[in-house]
């Protein structure tokens, strides 16, 4: 016989989990007691939201399922934003929460909250475990559900008596089969053959690749497919890294802050091949004008995404990598599309994604310089706002899983804890959090965690003393009425120092390279406070409700 807590920790180890992120409290004391001296590493964060984001960052960087742990009531509720963030971006994660003893459930007991109910809309599935003997089975199912099909967070709520009670040693887990859960991995062959023939006929095809390509580790197949067919690729925010930034077939990001050439290509294409992407409104702009002249092939693991926002001509339900592999096997001859290629190359020359080199300390310059120094070798995490968009636009990503950002939910405060998680997934790589001065203050307490575990995350604050992205909208669409978006100057280097972290404040463009080099060559964590041009805007931009080719900014002066 073993306690539920012991079964839980052993179950996690059996599952191959090495690191979890958490925060203790009353009802999880038995679990924490079991963690004491356990080979399972636990990272003590400073706020449960950070535990969820760290587990999420760990998952994105490694491809493995991330795990976080919190106590009942306030602890569990603090996880919610992190769970929702993972849900919107389809990130595999297990959230373990303590719960009041089963006898008190439903009694409004101290620190009771109905966390399975609260998180129902933002989890792929959830469990309220009622018996210690169920823990191991639930754990096996939860990892299976979180990590297969369209991935996502699964919550396991563990009442205190369930983890204190004893149960027999769990039986070895067989293959998990759930009658209500059977994701489709292989694409339908006839559909794939139809796709091949549509590609053969297309004069102006474009590939639109999203986070599904990253999730299924399909980047090599995607690149081979593009090279074999000569079809250019534009990626969503979540798809960045699927193809190297400087690959001749890469059109960069599309959508609201995409490149002009990507958006023009979408608007003029006659065949759109969507792979692991979901036609999100930030990508499509006015949906009726998105790829108006194109037949659409949509490859996605989630059948519910097909036809949800846009009617498609040819659906292929399946895993991106498997479908692409199957398509590669069936490709015959390559079609030359000189006119189309010339047109795209002309747009690329005409509307490059550039930043003025005028001696002003502009945020884009910071990103470009960092990009040159790292040469794509490192993990870049971002916060949310202008900082995120400038990074997506100006950092040259070369590998999948090196760009980690909250896309679907757009969660400010995500970056720093996610960067901590990414470090534990890839301790071999330098990890940078590109932050705004607003966002960093949403989870700045994690400086404490970074110091405690000597996590060498470098924090690059693009400090414009504004909630910049909101200010940009106020400038452009609300007549410059900056309602509650100005932030006072904060001494971030001082805050870092108080926690015991080194840092530099940078006030001019000519110090950028030196400061970034200092950060890169420092072994431990480092904070850089770049006092950037305050009213710089993210361009090009598609105003809300416009078609994606109706962009403002981003032209040659």
């Amino acid at each position, binding site marked *: 016989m073993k306690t539920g807590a012991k079964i839980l920790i052993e179950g996690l180890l059996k599952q191959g989990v090495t690191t979890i992120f958490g925060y203790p409290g009353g009802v999880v004391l038995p679990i924490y007691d079991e963690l004491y001296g356990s080979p399972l590493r636990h990272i003590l964060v400073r706020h449960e939201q950070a535990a969820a984001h760290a587990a999420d960052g760990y998952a994105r960087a490694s491809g493995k399922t991330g795990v976080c742990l919190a106590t009942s009531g306030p602890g569990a509720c603090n996880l919610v934003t992190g769970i929702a963030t993972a849900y919107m971006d389809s990130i595999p994660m297990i959230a373990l929460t303590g719960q009041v003893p089963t006898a008190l459930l439903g009694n409004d007991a101290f620190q009771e909250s109905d966390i399975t109910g609260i998180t*129902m809309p933002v989890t*792929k*599935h959830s469990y309220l475990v009622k018996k210690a003997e169920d823990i191991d089975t639930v754990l096996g199912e939860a990892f299976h*559900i979180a990590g297969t099909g369209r991935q996502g967070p699964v919550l396991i709520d563990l009442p205190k008596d369930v983890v204190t009670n004893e149960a027999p040693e769990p039986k070895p887990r067989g293959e998990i089969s759930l009658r*209500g859960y059977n994701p489709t991995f292989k694409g339908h062959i006839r559909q794939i053959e139809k796709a091949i023939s549509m590609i053969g006929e297309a004069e102006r095809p474009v590939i639109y690749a999203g986070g599904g390509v990253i999730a299924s580790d399909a980047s090599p197949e995607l690149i081979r497919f593009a090279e074999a067919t000569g079809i250019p690729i534009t990626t969503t925010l979540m798809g960045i890294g699927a193809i190297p930034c400087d690959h001749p077939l890469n059109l960069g990001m599309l959508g609201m802050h995409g490149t002009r050439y990507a958006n023009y290509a979408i608007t003029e294409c006659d065949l759109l091949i969507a792979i692991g992407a979901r036609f999100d409104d930030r990508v499509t702009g006015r949906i009726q004008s998105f790829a108006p002249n194109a037949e659409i092939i949509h490859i996605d693991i989630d059948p*519910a995404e097909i*036809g949800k926002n846009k009617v498609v001509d040819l659906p292929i339900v399946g895993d991106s990598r498997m479908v692409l592999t199957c398509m590669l096997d069936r490709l015959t001859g390559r079609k030359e599309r000189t006119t189309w290629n010339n047109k795209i190359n002309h747009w690329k020359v005409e509307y490059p994604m550039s930043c003025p080199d005028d001696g002003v300390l502009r945020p884009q310059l910071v990103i470009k310089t960092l990009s040159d120094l790292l040469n794509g070798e490192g993990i870049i995490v971002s916060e949310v706002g202008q900082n995120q968009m400038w990074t997506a636009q100006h950092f040259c990503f070369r590998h999948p899983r090196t760009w980690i950002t909250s896309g679907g939910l757009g969660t400010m405060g995500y970056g720093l804890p996610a960067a901590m998680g990414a470090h534990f997934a890839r301790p071999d790589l330098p990890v940078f959090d590109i932050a705004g001065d607003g966002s960093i203050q949403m989870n700045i307490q994690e400086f404490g965690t970074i110091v405690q575990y000597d996590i060498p995350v470098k924090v690059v604050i693009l400090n414009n003393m504004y909630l910049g992205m909101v200010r940009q909208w106020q400038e452009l669409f609300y007549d410059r009425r900056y309602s509650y978006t100005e932030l006072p100057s904060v001494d971030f280097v001082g805050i870092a120092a108080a926690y015991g972290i080194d840092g530099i404040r940078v006030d001019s463009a000519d110090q950028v390279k030196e400061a970034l080099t200092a950060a890169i060559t420092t072994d431990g964590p480092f904070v850089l406070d770049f006092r950037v041009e305050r009213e710089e805007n993210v361009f090009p931009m598609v105003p809300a409700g416009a078609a994606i080719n109706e962009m403002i900014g981003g032209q040659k002066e």
Partner: protein
Amino acid sequence: MKVHTLSVLVENRAGVLSRVAGMFSRRGFNIESLAVGTCEVPEMSRITITVNGDDTQIEQVKKQLNKLIDVIKVSDITYREHVRRELALIKVAANPGSSRAEVMQIADTFRAQIIDVGAKTLVLQVVGPPEKIDALEKLLRQYGVKELVRTGTIAALRGSKTTAGE
């Protein structure tokens, strides 16, 4: 827009109904009726849902239902040969001497049973497709419908086919 009848097999587990109902309200789908009960397999339940929407919306409803882990099978039986029934209890004002005889006559025409006779009211039990219940209720309104209780539609395929095994 058309009312569709979905027969949904689910795991008989705590929370399954709120997962299903929550998905409908969260995604803005309109449930016309929902009836749930045990079924021929002990660990499963069957939910019959009638939902109004155009083809694309109904397609989304079915796909989103299928995504729920506790949902085992979704069958849209709208366009297949099936029988639909609903049961309603209607408490109607029927004073002895005045309207009571008329109400009883209407009940008779609809093959509704009178299952309670009060001093001033009758309770009618009627079974049929929802349209029949609508029609009866409309007729009874002039006498004063004090209470209307409906079970929601349940449905089954005609012949030997079942929604569970296909």
